[in-house]
C-alpha cells in the first residue's frame, strides 16, 4: 500500500515563495547558464515569439525533394507527413508557438525573420547518417518580458537525398519528422517516453505523437497564458553527499498515466513544470552513457557557461523515489493542483558506479510483426511483451535477481513471468495478468537488479481490442458525384481515423453491420498514390497487422493545376490582401494552405471563396530585402506554385498599413459584426486627424468613423453587410492603405435567462451556488455544430471559464439553446456576478447573476 503523503499544506506555504524565487528549470532544452549571486540561471535557446508575426513560426520545404524515393512514394506524400508532424507541435494548447507551412523554399533569398528549413540533398550526409536536425542560435542571450533566452535565428531539418529505404507512410518516418522538428524548436532528448526521447523510452505513436512531457517541454519554452493556470509544478534539489547533482533527470510519474521530467542545474535544483492536476510519484535517475566518449550522457548537448564552456554532468547515482526509497510502496505520492507549486521537494541520492540496466525497449506481437512500443490487448491471447536492453539478459537467461514490476495496477508481472524469450533468448519476455476492470493506456515498468533500479515510463500500452486492419480500399462516387473510398477491414470503429498518407480523410458514413467506412479522400494530385492507414485512438494502427501489405488509393489523372496572384508586388512592412486565382485547382476550406517561401512574407489568414479563388492577408516584414519570392498553394496532395509570384519592394515612407486583426471594442475580441462597432489599428496615421478626414469602406460600403485616436480608427460596421470575408479599405491624408480582408461574423449570442435545474430563473431570492448546475438559455449561437462540438463554447462566470456540460436546442425555437454547466470553485460570489457566453470569439453582453458560496 502506498504511503500517501498529502503535501498540499507545504505547497500552499511555498506558493508565495515561488513567485519571487527563480529556481533553475532545465527541462531538456539547449541550455546556457548565467550565474548571479552564486546561483545558476537557466537561459534556454528558443525562438523570439515577439519577432514573429502572430507568434507563428514558419517552416519551408525545399522544392528539390529527395533524389531517391521508396517505390510508390512521392514528394506530395512526404510533404503531407511533414505538415502533420508540424501540426502536432502547433496544436499544443498550452504553448503560444504556432508552427505553420511557409511554402516551398525561395532559393537564394536573404531572410531576416527566423524560420525552419526542411532540406533534402542540399546538405551532404555521409553514409550511415540518415537525418539531422538542430537550431542555430546567436551566442549572446537577450531579455524580454518572458526572461532571458538565447534567440534561435534559424533551424534546419535535413532528411537527406536518399529516402528509398524510408517510405513516408511509415510511423517511423512520421515520428522522425516530429522528433527532428522538436529539436528545431529548441527541445533536446528526454528519457520519459516522449517523442523527444531516445529510442530507449520513446512510446508515442502516430495517433498521439506527443506525450505530456513533450507538451510540457514546448510549453515551458513558449508558454501560453493558460499553461501556468492549468498546470502545476514540483521543484526541489537533488543531492549526493550534500552536493547538488548536475543533469540528474527528475521525473513526475502518474501511477497509471503520464510522465514529465526535467534536468537539474549544476547545483542540483530542478523544477518540473506542466503537470496536469493529479497524483504523482517523483524520482530521480542518472542519464545513461552517451554514444561516444566525449559526448554528454544520453547524447544530451551539454549546457554551456557564460564563457561557452561545456558544464559536465554530475556523478552517477542510484535511481531513487522521493522521499529516498527504491520501493514504490514507500514512495511519496504528491497531489498536484493547477496553478500551484510544490517547493523543497528535495531528494538525497547515493552515488554509484556504472549502471546495471538502461536502454530498455519493449515489443509486442499483435500479429506477424513486432510492434514497438509494446501494445498488449488484455482480451487477447498474447499477454506478454518482449524487452531488450542493457542488463536484462545474461547468457540467454534473465540476469540473476532481475525483477520487473508494473506501476499503478491494471497489470501484474506473473510470479514466474520473467524469462528469456524462447524465439530469441537474447530478449526478455514478461508475462502479465490483468485486472479485468482495469483501465487502458500507458503503463510504466520498473526493473531492479543488484540494488539498481530502472524505471521505464509508458513501457507498454494496455488496450482492449485488436488493432484495425484494412482488407481493401474501393474507389467510388457518392450521389453528388464526389469521389469516395470504401474502406473494408476489421476492427474499424467509430473513432477510427483513416489517413491517406499523412492526411486525414473525412468519414462520410459507417456500415453498422460490418464497420466498413466510406470516406471522402483529401484533395489529390493527378495520379497520386496514397497509402491508406487506419488509426485508432488507443494508439494502434493498421500497420500492426497489415505490415508490408499496403492498401492504396490512386487518384485519377487530371490536368496539372496552376495559380496566379495579384497584386504582383508589395512593399516591405505592409499588410495587404492578395487574390489568388487557380486553374485546375480544388481549393477547399480546411485543406488549402499557402506560403511565399520566405520567413519575411507570411500569410496571416486565407479564405477559400471557390475552387479556383483565394483571398489572403499577407504580411511583409519591415526588414524584408528587395526580392522576388514564389507562391505555393497546397490543397490536400495538390501542389501549385508560381515562381517569382511576389516582388518585395522597398518600404513606402509615410504609407498607411491596416492591421487586419480588427477587434470588437466592447469585448476586445477579434470578432466584428454588421451593425456593431469595430476598432482597426492603422500604422502611419498622422496625429490630429478627425473622423471626417478618414475614409473607410467595407466591400464598397462607407462605414461611419466615430473616432481616430492613438493609431486606431473606431467605426461602425455597415449594417447591410452579410457574414464572411469582406474587403476593408482606408484612405486618409492623401494616402490609401493596401486593402485587407476582414471577417464579418454573425452578431454575438444573447443570454435570455439563467436558471436552476428546476427552471427557476436566478434572482436575489434564488441565487446560483458554487458547485451547482446552472442552465443558460442563449439565442443567436449561429453555429448549430456546437451541439456536437461544445468545446467551442465557453461560459465565463465570475472570472472563471467553464465548458458547458451539454448544449441542447430549445424545441420550437430557431437558434435558441440551453447550456448546462456546473459553477466551478473559485467563482467570485455576490449579487452581481458577470456571466458571458462566447462562441469562438463572439462574446455575449454580460448579464449580472447572483452567486453564493457552496453550502
Amino acid at each position, binding site marked *: 500500500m502506498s504511503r500517501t503523503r498529502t503535501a498540499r499544506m507545504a505547497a500552499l506555504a511555498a506558493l508565495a515563495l515561488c513567485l519571487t524565487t527563480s529556481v533553475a528549470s532545465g527541462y531538456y532544452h539547449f541550455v546556457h547558464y548565467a550565474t548571479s549571486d552564486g546561483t545558476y540561471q537557466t537561459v534556454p535557446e528558443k525562438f523570439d515569439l515577439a519577432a514573429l508575426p502572430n507568434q507563428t513560426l514558419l517552416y519551408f520545404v525545399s522544392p528539390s525533394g529527395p533524389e531517391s524515393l521508396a517505390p510508390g512514394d512521392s514528394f506530395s506524400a512526404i510533404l503531407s507527413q511533414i505538415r502533420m508532424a508540424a501540426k502536432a507541435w502547433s496544436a499544443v494548447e498550452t504553448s503560444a508557438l504556432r508552427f505553420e507551412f511557409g511554402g516551398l523554399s525561395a532559393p537564394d533569398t536573404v531572410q531576416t525573420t527566423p524560420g525552419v*528549413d526542411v*532540406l533534402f540533398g*542540399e*546538405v*551532404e550526409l*555521409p*553514409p*550511415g*547518417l*540518415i537525418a*539531422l*536536425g*538542430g*537550431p*542555430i*542560435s546567436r*551566442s*549572446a542571450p537577450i531579455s524580454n518580458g518572458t526572461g532571458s533566452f538565447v534567440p534561435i*535565428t*534559424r533551424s*534546419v531539418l535535413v532528411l537527406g537525398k536518399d529516402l528509398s*529505404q*524510408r517510405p513516408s507512410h*511509415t510511423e*517511423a518516418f512520421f*515520428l*522522425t519528422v*516530429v*522528433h527532428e522538428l522538436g*529539436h528545431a524548436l529548441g527541445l*533536446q*532528448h528526454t528519457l520519459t517516453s516522449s517523442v523527444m526521447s*531516445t*529510442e*530507449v523510452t*520513446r512510446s508515442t*505513436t502516430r495517433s498521439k505523437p506527443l506525450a505530456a512531457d513533450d507538451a510540457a517541454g514546448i510549453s515551458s519554452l513558449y508558454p501560453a497564458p493558460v499553461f501556468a493556470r492549468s498546470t502545476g509544478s514540483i521543484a526541489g534539489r537533488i543531492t549526493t553527499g550534500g552536493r547538488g547533482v548536475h543533469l540528474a533527470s527528475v521525473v513526475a510519474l502518474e501511477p497509471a498515466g503520464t510522465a514529465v521530467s526535467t534536468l537539474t542545474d549544476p547545483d542540483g535544483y530542478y523544477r518540473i513544470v506542466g503537470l496536469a492536476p493529479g497524483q504523482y510519484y517523483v524520482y530521480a535517475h542518472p542519464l545513461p*552513457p*552517451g*554514444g*561516444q*566518449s*566525449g*559526448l554528454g550522457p544520453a*547524447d*544530451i*548537448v551539454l549546457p554551456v557557461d557564460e564563457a*561557452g564552456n561545456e558544464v559536465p554532468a554530475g556523478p552517477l547515482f542510484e535511481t531513487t523515489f522521493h522521499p529516498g526509497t527504491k520501493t514504490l510502496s514507500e514512495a511519496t505520492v504528491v497531489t498536484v493542483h493547477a496553478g500551484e507549486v510544490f517547493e523543497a521537494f528535495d531528494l538525497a541520492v547515493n552515488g554509484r558506479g556504472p549502471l546495471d540496466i538502461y*536502454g530498455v525497449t519493449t*515489443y509486442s506481437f499483435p*500479429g506477424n*510483426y513486432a510492434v*514497438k*512500443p509494446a501494445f498488449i490487448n488484455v482480451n487477447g491471447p498474447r499477454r506478454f511483451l518482449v524487452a*531488450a536492453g542493457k542488463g536484462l539478459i545474461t547468457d540467454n537467461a534473465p540476469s540473476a535477481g532481475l525483477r520487473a514490476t508494473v506501476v499503478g495496477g491494471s497489470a501484474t508481472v506473473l510470479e514466474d513471468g520473467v524469462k528469456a524469450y524462447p524465439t530469441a533468448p537474447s*530478449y526478455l519476455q514478461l508475462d502479465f495478468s490483468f485486472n479485468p476492470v482495469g483501465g487502458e493506456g500507458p503503463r510504466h515498468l520498473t526493473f531492479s537488479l543488484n540494488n539498481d533500479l530502472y524505471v521505464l515510463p509508458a513501457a507498454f500500452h494496455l488496450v482492449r481490442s485488436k488493432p484495425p486492419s484494412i482488407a481493401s480500399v474501393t474507389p467510388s462516387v457518392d450521389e453528388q458525384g464526389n469521389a469516395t473510398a470504401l474502406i473494408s477491414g476489421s476492427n474499424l470503429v467509430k473513432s477510427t481515423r483513416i489517413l491517406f498518407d499523412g492526411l486525414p480523410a473525412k468519414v462520410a458514413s459507417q456500415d453498422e453491420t460490418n464497420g466498413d467506412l466510406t470516406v471522402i479522400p483529401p484533395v489529390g494530385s493527378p495520379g497520386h498514390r496514397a497509402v491508406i492507414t487506419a488509426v485508432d485512438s488507443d494508439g494502434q494502427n493498421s*500497420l*500492426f*497487422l497489415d*505490415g508490408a501489405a499496403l492498401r492504396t488509393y490512386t487518384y485519377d489523372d487530371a490536368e496539372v493545376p496552376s495559380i496566379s496572384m495579384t497584386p504582383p508586388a508589395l512593399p516591405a512592412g505592409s499588410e495587404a490582401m492578395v487574390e489568388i486565382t487557380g486553374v485546375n485547382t480544388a481549393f477547399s476550406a480546411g485543406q488549402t494552405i499557402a506560403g511565399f517561401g520566405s520567413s519575411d512574407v507570411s500569410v496571416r489568414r486565407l479564405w477559400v471563396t471557390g475552387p479556383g479563388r483565394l483571398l489572403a492577408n499577407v504580411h511583409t516584414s519591415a526588414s524584408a530585402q528587395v526580392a522576388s519570392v514564389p507562391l505555393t498553394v497546397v490543397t490536400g496532395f495538390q501542389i501549385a506554385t508560381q515562381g517569382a509570384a511576389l516582388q518585395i519592394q522597398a518600404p513606402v515612407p509615410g504609407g498607411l498599413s491596416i492591421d487586419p486583426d480588427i477587434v470588437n471594442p466592447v469585448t476586445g475580441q477579434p470578432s466584428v459584426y454588421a451593425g456593431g462597432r469595430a476598432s482597426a489599428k492603422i500604422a502611419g496615421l498622422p496625429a490630429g486627424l478627425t473622423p471626417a478626414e478618414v475614409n473607410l469602406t467595407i466591400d464598397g460600403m462607407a462605414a461611419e468613423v466615430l473616432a481616430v485616436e492613438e493609431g486606431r480608427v473606431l467605426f461602425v460596421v455597415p449594417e447591410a453587410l452579410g457574414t464572411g470575408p469582406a474587403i476593408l479599405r482606408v484612405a486618409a491624408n492623401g494616402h490609401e492603405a493596401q486593402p485587407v480582408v476582414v471577417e464579418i461574423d454573425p452578431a454575438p449570442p444573447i443570454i435570455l435567462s439563467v436558471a436552476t435545474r428546476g427552471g427557476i430563473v436566478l434572482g436575489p431570492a434564488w441565487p446560483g451556488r458554487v458547485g451547482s448546475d446552472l442552465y443558460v438559455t442563449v439565442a443567436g449561437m449561429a453555429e448549430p455544430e456546437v451541439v456536437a462540438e461544445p468545446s467551442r463554447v465557453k461560459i465565463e462566470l465570475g472570472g472563471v471559464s467553464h465548458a458547458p456540460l451539454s448544449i441542447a436546442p430549445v424545441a420550437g425555437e430557431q437558434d435558441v439553446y440551453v447550456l448546462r454547466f456546473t459553477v466551478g470553485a473559485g467563482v467570485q460570489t455576490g449579487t452581481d456576478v458577470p456571466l458571458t457566453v462566447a462562441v469562438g470569439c463572439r462574446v455575449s453582453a454580460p448579464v449580472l447573476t447572483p452567486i453564493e458560496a457552496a453550502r
Partner: protein
Amino acid sequence: MVSRATTAFLLAGLAAAQCATMEYLSPDAMIDQSTAIVRAVVLDSDGRQHGPMVYTHFKLKILEQLKGAAPLEIVVPGGTAGSLRQTFAGAPALVKGSEYLLFLWTGSSGLTHVLGFAQGVYRVSVGAGGEMTAARPASAEVMLDPKTGMQMQDEPVQLRLADLRSRVASRASAKGRAQ
C-alpha cells in the same frame, strides 16, 4: 576481429526518432564505404558556416593511414562560427590532443565527414602487451538496418588495429579481384 552482436526485429512500420537518425553500418561496410581510414590526433578546430549549416573543422595529424588518401581536415556538423552556434545531439565529439581511429568519407562538396556520425569514431588505446585497440560504445541514437529499414539495437564495438589492417587489405584485395 570484431566483437559485435546485433539483433533486429521486423517492425510493423514503427521505429524511433532522434536528433540524428543513423543507418547501421557493419564493420565491413564501414571499411568499404569509407574513402579513408586513419589513426590521427586532433590538432585544432574551428567552426565555419556553410549555407544553412555550421560545421566544426578539425585539423588532424595523421599517425597512420589504413585506407585512402589521408585528409588533413575533417568536418563534423554543428559548432560555433562567429556569433552563431548550431547544435546536433549525438554529433561526434573530438577532443584536441586525443588520438582516434576515424572512418571518413569525402563527398562531392569536397568536405570530409566522419562516416555514420559516432559510428566512425573510435578511441585508441594501447594494451599491456603493446597491442593497439580501438573501441566505441553503443550509440544512443536510432540505428536502422539497411536491409529492412527497421530499427535495430546497436552494441559496443572493440577491434584490434592489427586485425583491422588485415581486414582493410583483404577487402581491398577482394575488391581488386572483383574488378
